[in-house]
Every structure is written in structure tokens, then in C-alpha cells.
């Protein structure tokens, strides 16, 4: 088997609520390789969003490990090579993971251009002119360069989500996380967002996508995870999952959604 760069290694990830009464994540173990387009499917309440949000610690896991860039980011501190305790700088790790939300979460008090350049300029200290140039390039890619001075409220849902994607790309992340990016969209706008994501996948971006779009999972994903009740029940290529599902829960789920 060819050796591939693992970007994120997730081991026995757990998230408990109410002292373990509710297990939102139950010992999830998975490796994410460079260039993977990993699609996470499953019924609602299965823990797929919790899993995704744990990856950049918007949810704090209660057990297990997430090794990202060689550091276990679930722990508050770690020992470096000199044996010194170092506090984890979560903000630094989050810069390397772009995230796209179901409800877009654009900043309503800022124009599209300001939305895009605020993080690079304020966090990465990129010169404003440079950031603006880059933002225009990205806006051109998603066909929205003429809306740079508009406010988010003036855009449609599909346009907002495309902006949210390129806003995350402004930070030049190593991984992109998508949390049900098309679930809040009108049906006719789903395609334009999926097209942008597909284009990203073709360029070799590592992506983890939580979605209900089975067509996207089959067509664009190279690995599919099926989750239910907080457990990772089955994983494999889209062909494995959709043509030869093994687990009865997966068979049941697919019979409902396909």
C-alpha cells in the first residue's frame, strides 16, 4: 500500500454529556490523509456534527486524541522534545483548519470584502492590499467579484455559503471542514455550493464533509464514514458503502435516503 501523509489521526474520540449518560461520540477512530475527501453520513443525532466540530475543538472532547500536525490538540498542554510542558495554542491550529457552517455565519456588520480580509489581516498580519488582491481572486473563482462591497444581507443563501467557503480559504488552511453546508439552502442553490466544493476537491484540498447530499458523497468523496448513535459503524470507498453496505443500520439508512 502506498504511504500517504496523515494529516489528522483521531483515536478513540469520546464526547460525553451528563457524566457519560449521553455519548455523543463513542470511541471514534479514523485517519484523515492528505487529499482525502471524507464524507460523513448518518441519521440526525448520530454525532457527525459533533465529530466535525471536535476536530477544531468547537466542542471539547472528553476522551481520546486528535493528532494534528504531530500534536494532540485535545489536551490543554503537551511535552515538547525538550521535555518542557507547552500550552496548546488552539488559535494557531484553527488557522490551519477552515470551517464552513450550516448557517454561513458571515459577519453581518462587515462587507463581503471585509469579511474575507479580516482574519488574514488581523490574525496573520498579511498587508491589507495583498489580502484584498487575494480576496478578489477568490471571489472571481466563485463568480462573486462584483459583490465585494455588498453586505451579507444583500446576498442569497447560496452566495453567502460560497463567500463563507472562500473566506475560510483566505487563511490557506490545510484542511477544510464542512458542517452540512447545503442544509439551510433552497434546493436550487445547492448545486452552486456543491460545484465550488467539487472544484476544491479536484484541486487536492483535504476535506471533511458532513452532508445529506448522497450524490455528492458518491461522486466527489473518496472515503465515506457512516455514523450512528455516536459510533463509527462503517467506513469505506463510496462504492463499498453505497453498493455493498454491510452493517444493518447502514442498509436501513440507505434504504430511506436513496
Amino acid at each position, binding site marked *: 500500500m502506498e504511504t500517504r501523509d496523515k494529516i489528522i489521526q483521531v483515536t478513540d474520540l469520546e464526547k*460525553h454529556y451528563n*457524566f*457519560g449518560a449521553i455519548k455523543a461520540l463513542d470511541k471514534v477512530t479514523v485517519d484523515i490523509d492528505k487529499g482525502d475527501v471524507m464524507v460523513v453520513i448518518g441519521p440526525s443525532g448520530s454525532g457527525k456534527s459533533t465529530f466535525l466540530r471536535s476536530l*477544531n475543538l*468547537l466542542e*471539547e*472532547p*472528553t*476522551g481520546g486524541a486528535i493528532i494534528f500536525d504531530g500534536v494532540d490538540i*485535545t*489536551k*490543554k*498542554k*503537551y511535552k515538547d522534545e525538550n521535555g518542557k510542558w507547552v500550552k496548546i495554542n488552539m*488559535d*494557531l491550529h*484553527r*488557522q490551519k*483548519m*477552515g*470551517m464552513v*457552517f450550516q*448557517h454561513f*455565519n*458571515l*459577519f*453581518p*456588520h462587515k462587507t463581503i470584502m471585509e469579511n474575507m480580509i*479580516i*482574519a488574514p489581516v*488581523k*490574525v*496573520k498580519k498579511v498587508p491589507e492590499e495583498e489580502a484584498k488582491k487575494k480576496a478578489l481572486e477568490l471571489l472571481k473563482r466563485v463568480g462573486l467579484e462584483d459583490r465585494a462591497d455588498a453586505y451579507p*444581507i*444583500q446576498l442569497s443563501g447560496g452566495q453567502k455559503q460560497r463567500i*463563507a467557503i472562500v*473566506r*475560510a480559504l483566505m*487563511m490557506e488552511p490545510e484542511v477544510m471542514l464542512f458542517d452540512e453546508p447545503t442544509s439551510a439552502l433552497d434546493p436550487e442553490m445547492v448545486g452552486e455550493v456543491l460545484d465550488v466544493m467539487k472544484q476544491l476537491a479536484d484541486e487536492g484540498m483535504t476535506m471533511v464533509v458532513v452532508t445529506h447530499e448522497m450524490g455528492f458523497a458518491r461522486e466527489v468523496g473518496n472515503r465515506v464514514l457512516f455514523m450512528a448513535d455516536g459510533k463509527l459503524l462503517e467506513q469505506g470507498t463510496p462504492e463499498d458503502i453505497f453498493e455493498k453496505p454491510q452493517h444493518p443500520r447502514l442498509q436501513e439508512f440507505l434504504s430511506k435516503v436513496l
Partner: protein
Amino acid sequence: MDSFVQLENFGRLAPYSQLFIQGIIVTVMLSVFTVAIGFVLAIILSAMRMSDCYPLAFLGLDKEGHQREKGFGVTLSKFNPLSLIATAYVEILRSTPVIVQVAIIYYGVFGALIELPSFTFFGFIKFERFFPGVVALGMNSGAYLCEIMRSGIQSIDSGQSEAARSLGMNWVQNMRYIILPQAIKNILPAIANEFVVIIKESAITYTIGVQDIMSAVNAVRGATFIIIEPLLVATAIYFCLCFPASKLIAHFERRMSRGDKR
């Protein structure tokens, strides 16, 4: 029986008009300084209430550094001294009468503990009475403004913070560039409203001898034994200060909300 108000009594107030004019100046200055102090105090207090200062956080971690789920250590790890102090301050100030607070500040703090230089500025404002009044009212409105700010900040959708943090912004950057600009727009009407409340509440400082509008009423009463008419004059003055102010606020509120619509 005499009628309730005797018109000729208003004529007898004329020699004291200077007192009322001074009273208006004092009241307005009291309110402005109070809001300034209250605003600064409220920013500090609300930052304390929402701070993530957990000096005992390590008690909640297990050997590997994971957050533990239960136990005495977890309870202790959630202890936030800054938040506790700010919350206690706000709750005490909000649950006691202003008149008591003013008296305690004037007779207690500045009467016994700290000695103020006694001089007059503007020719008629006694500093050693004006200053404790401002401090007491400022401390009081700081508590109320703190609650206004906190609710304004917490009314911002949590998705905004999540988006900002996922872009790599830290707590301070998130607050400064994303949350506060939106929150301040939401709470400006409430802050302006608090200003109107302070104009009215400042009347309480006449009990410690600040020469505001109410103390002008008292002075006139003492000199002429007329009560109702000076009170009516004071009512008219307070109304003329507060009503236009609240109308002005409503006007700006409408103008600001216009930007929210398409």
C-alpha cells in the same frame, strides 16, 4: 379653601430663578459624569463577568490533560474569581436602594475614610458634595449598564464567535472585531435610555446637599414656605430634559435599524 396652585406664587419664585438655572447645570453635569463613570465601570465589570479566568482549571484535568467529567476538582476548576467579584458587585448594587448607596458613599466612604478637598467650581458647585454624588450614582449605573452590556453581548448568535474562532482569531480579537461592534449597535438604545434614567435618579443627591434642581426646590421652600409651585417648576424642568432626550433616542433607534433592512 385655597386652590391647589396659586398663580401669584409663581411670581414670588422669580428672585430664585438663578437657583433653578444652577440646578439644571448641576443635574446635567451629574448625569454626564455619572454615565461616563458608569460606562467605564460597566465595560470592566462585564469583561470580568465573561472572562475565562480559571486559576484552578488544572484541578479539572486528568493525568493526560483531558477535561475530567465529575468530581470535586471539576467543581473547583470552574471557580472564576473575577466573575464572582463582578457578579457580587452587580447584584448588591442592584438589590439596594440608590438613596442608601448615596448616603453610604457620602457619609461612610468620603466622610470617614477619604477626605476630599473642599472648593467650589463654576462658582457654585461644591466639589466635596458633588464628587461623592457622582461616584455613588456612577457605581450604581455601572451595575445596570454592566447587565445591559452583558445581555447585548450574549444576544449575538454564537455562530459568530464560532466563525471567528474557526478563522483563528483569539478571544480578544473575536470580541473586538466581531462581537462588540454588533453588540454595541444593539445596546446603544438601552444605554441612552439609562442616561434618561440617571437624569431623573440624580435628584436623589439633594439628600447629601448637591445643589441640583431638587435642592433648589428645597431652598425656595425654606425661604418662602411655598411648596407646590417650585415642585411644579422642577417637574417641568425634568420633563423638558428627559422627554426630548428620549424622543431623540427613539429617532436614532429608527435610523439605525433602517440599515438592517434591505
